């Protein structure tokens, strides 16, 4: 028998960025909040020995323990879905701070176009630009409505950047801190893109350029460009993460506590409300029921969708009938990449997770698609994250994969190789979705989430077009050998791409085409909120966290309103 605990005002499932933001805002306003986090506590003091590529980047020390839970995957419905047995394509977070501990810190705002993509695409290119298989829809909020919340997220996190991107939405204020250092590698990209007539700008970064105190009184350190950033925690407290910002903010109110090793297995529902959640203490094996006035799912895209599915809240999407919304519009990203080999040696091992320069000349609708066979596009960036020797063994084409020639070439080119890549938007397709797996279970006996996903025609076309543009930039940068990425075929779960999964619990203005309303309040349960990139009806040409951070701040406000007045917020 599960033991029932005392009721709290708000419970969050998971304490990463989303859980932390909700907790901080609700606790500041006086609500009693409890975070249930299945991982362990951790913080800056744990990262003194973090400059260890093998432990953290290769063996994934900070990430989800797949022996307990993973997902299953197939490219299409005719294939048998099989478990992702080892981490690969994306790296799921686990423990205090979630993936916000080992993220890079690229902190973008999605484009105004993204939020009204259907309307704007149809207006400019007519109704038939994409075939009916693509499930394009507006988000129900506009960029302008979200702008104050973008601003709030950036001020909380102290983002370093420069407001010079002509394609970005209007900002109500400057970046809280100046951009990071412009290194020789970045300057090569800046010169090349400028001379091609594009508009390079410093990538907005959560690796702060200077010490910063945020409006909640939390201090974030200054980045030391140590080169061990993405996949690692920051030993300087200089990479903004939940455990140095929103979590301590929530804690200091006295209204927030976290139960660690608490794996939530079910959301409990009664009528049109949820009553709380059930979780397993992963250390003792005991089960608990945590009753709450408001339940907020902040357990990442996959887990949020899975918890709704196993709890039977909402209707599962069915690709045959198009009915149901839960699991619909799963999206990922398209990554056109070009590698260049140079004569000169460069300081590639120095860097920071979000040290980079970007152009948006081929993102969103900033270029004309009338004669192109796709919509949207990609931000194109060079980043200097710090090349590490196990992962980076660059060899020009025709070099053997092992033996003496390999050794020579990989050592020679390690400091002479750069790559430029685009983060391409993925458009939702009727065959790309999430559901529950019928065969495989997690360590607690709960079905695994099943992913059915493949790249689509639109993705392949965009990939090809953008690869050509990027190759032009690489050439202009002076590479002696330019190696454009291969055209994409089927999506592969093995090589790392991005942890930018989206969809499945999408937001919208109508229960017929969304899981939650624009305040991320569930259509079928007014005291249930679902927060994360799963809310995106389509994926964009940027990293997601800036945009979900903004949505989370808006939702926190909505939860406070709900806890006073109740009812639907729309």
């Amino acid at each position, binding site marked *: 028998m599960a033991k029932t605990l005392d009721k709290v005002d708000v419970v969050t499932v998971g304490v990463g960025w989303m859980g932390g933001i909700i907790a901080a805002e609700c606790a500041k306003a006086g609500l009693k909040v409890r975070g249930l986090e299945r991982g362990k506590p951790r913080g800056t003091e744990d990262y003194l020995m973090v400059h260890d590529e093998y432990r953290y980047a290769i063996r994934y020390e900070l990430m989800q323990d797949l022996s307990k839970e993973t997902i299953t995957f197939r490219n299409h419905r005719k294939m048998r879905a099989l478990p992702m047995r080892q981490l690969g394509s994306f790296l799921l977070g686990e423990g205090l701070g979630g993936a916000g501990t080992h993220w890079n810190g690229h902190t973008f705002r999605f484009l105004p176009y993204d939020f009204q993509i259907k309307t704007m695409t149809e207006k400019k290119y007519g109704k038939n630009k994409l075939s009916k298989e693509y499930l394009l829809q507006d988000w129900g909020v506009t960029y302008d409505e979200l702008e104050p919340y973008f601003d709030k997220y950036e001020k909380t996190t102290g983002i370093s950047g420069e407001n010079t991107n002509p394609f970005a939405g209007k900002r109500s204020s400057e970046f809280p801190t100046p951009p990071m250092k412009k290194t020789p590698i970045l300057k090569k990209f800046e010169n090349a893109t400028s001379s091609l007539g594009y508009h390079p700008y410093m990538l907005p970064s959560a690796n702060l350029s200077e010490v910063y105190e945020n409006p909640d009184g939390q201090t974030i350190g200054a980045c030391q460009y140590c080169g061990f950033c993405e996949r690692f925690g920051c030993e300087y407290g200089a990479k903004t993460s939940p455990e140095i910002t929103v979590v301590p903010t929530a804690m200091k109110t006295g209204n927030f506590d976290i139960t660690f090793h608490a794996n939530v297995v079910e959301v409990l529902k009664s009528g049109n409300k949820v009553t709380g959640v059930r979780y397993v203490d992963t250390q003792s094996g005991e089960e608990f029921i945590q009753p709450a006035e408001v339940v907020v799912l902040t357990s990442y895209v996959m887990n949020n969708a899975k918890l709704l599915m196993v709890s039977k809240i909402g209707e599962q999407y069915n690709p045959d009938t198009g009915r149901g919304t839960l699991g619909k519009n799963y999206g990922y990203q398209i990554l056109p990449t070009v590698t260049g080999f140079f004569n000169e040696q460069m300081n590639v091992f120095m860097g920071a997770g979000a040290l980079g320069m970007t152009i948006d000349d081929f993102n969103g609708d900033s270029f004309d698609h009338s004669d192109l066979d796709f919509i949207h596009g990609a931000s194109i960036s060079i980043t200097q994250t710090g090349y590490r020797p196990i992962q980076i063994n660059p*060899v020009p*084409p025709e070099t053997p994969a*092992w033996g003496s020639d390999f050794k*020579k070439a990989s050592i020679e080119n390690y400091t002479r190789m750069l790559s430029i890549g685009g983060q391409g938007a993925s458009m939702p397709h009727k065959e790309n979705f999430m559901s529950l797996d019928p065969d495989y279970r997690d360590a607690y006996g709960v079905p695994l989430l099943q992913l059915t996903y493949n790249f689509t025609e639109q993705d392949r076309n965009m990939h090809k077009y953008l690869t050509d543009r990027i190759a032009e930039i690489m050439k202009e940068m002076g590479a002696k050998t330019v190696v454009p990425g291969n055209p994409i075929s089927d999506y592969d779960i093995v090589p790392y791409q991005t942890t930018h999964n989206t969809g499945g619990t999408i937001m919208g203005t109508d229960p017929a085409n969304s899981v939650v309303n624009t305040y991320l309040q569930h259509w079928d349960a007014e005291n249930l909120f679902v927060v994360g990139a799963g809310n995106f009806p389509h994926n964009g040409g940027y990293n997601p966290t800036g945009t979900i951070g903004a949505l989370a701040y808006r939702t926190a406000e909505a939860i406070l309103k709900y806890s006073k007045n109740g009812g639907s917020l729309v």
Partner: protein
Amino acid sequence: MANEQKGVSRRDFLKTTGIATGALVGGGLIGGLVGYNVNKDGVQTKGGTQNAENHDTTSVKGLMFFTKRADFNILSQAVERIFPEDDLGPGAIGLGVPYFIDNQLAGNYGSNAREYMQGPFFAGEATQGYQSRLTRAEIFRQGIAMMEDEAQKRFQKGFTELDGGQMDEILTSIQKNEVEMKGVSSEFFFRLLRQATLEGAYADPIYNGNTNMDGWRMKGFPGHQMAYINVIEEEKFQKIEPKSISSMQH
């Protein structure tokens, strides 16, 4: 023959290097050419007769996984072929890679402790990744026995008695999936072996590979440095003496 498989098409190359699906790391671009090239030439290199016993006698390295010295010696010779000693510096044996792999096989890596190992098991498509019921420890054990078998079959000699070219021939067959293994493809075993070799060559020396940080020194990677804030804007390439995180402990 090793020399028969020269023509590596660019497409194959890209497909197997991770470029095919892009190379963004968390949205951060990191070098694309990180995977490896399946369709490769079995390269002829000199050396390859060096024995694991030639290792630095002052080291405290020891075997935690292998029980037979002979198995360890096969592993040592194989990884040396993958990453040989040359005029740039030591190869896998000189870098302690065999000890690194042995020690890793004895721990979480070898037992796949943090991976989903529940059944049922089905072969699946390449896009679905690793689907074997075998742990890495079991794969290595089987793989090494298989290399010895191949040596006996092809050359009527033990693997460690072969010359470099003969070893390469066997490794190339394994890489090209021409050798039968149970519960795993030989190609997968080769990938594992190659990847573990690079890990041992370039991981922090606390893991008993990368002896004297010579792997890093060859590559120009300075290991654990606290900060580059003062030099990151320099145009000139910075040669920095590498440091291990073990220096943090004092």
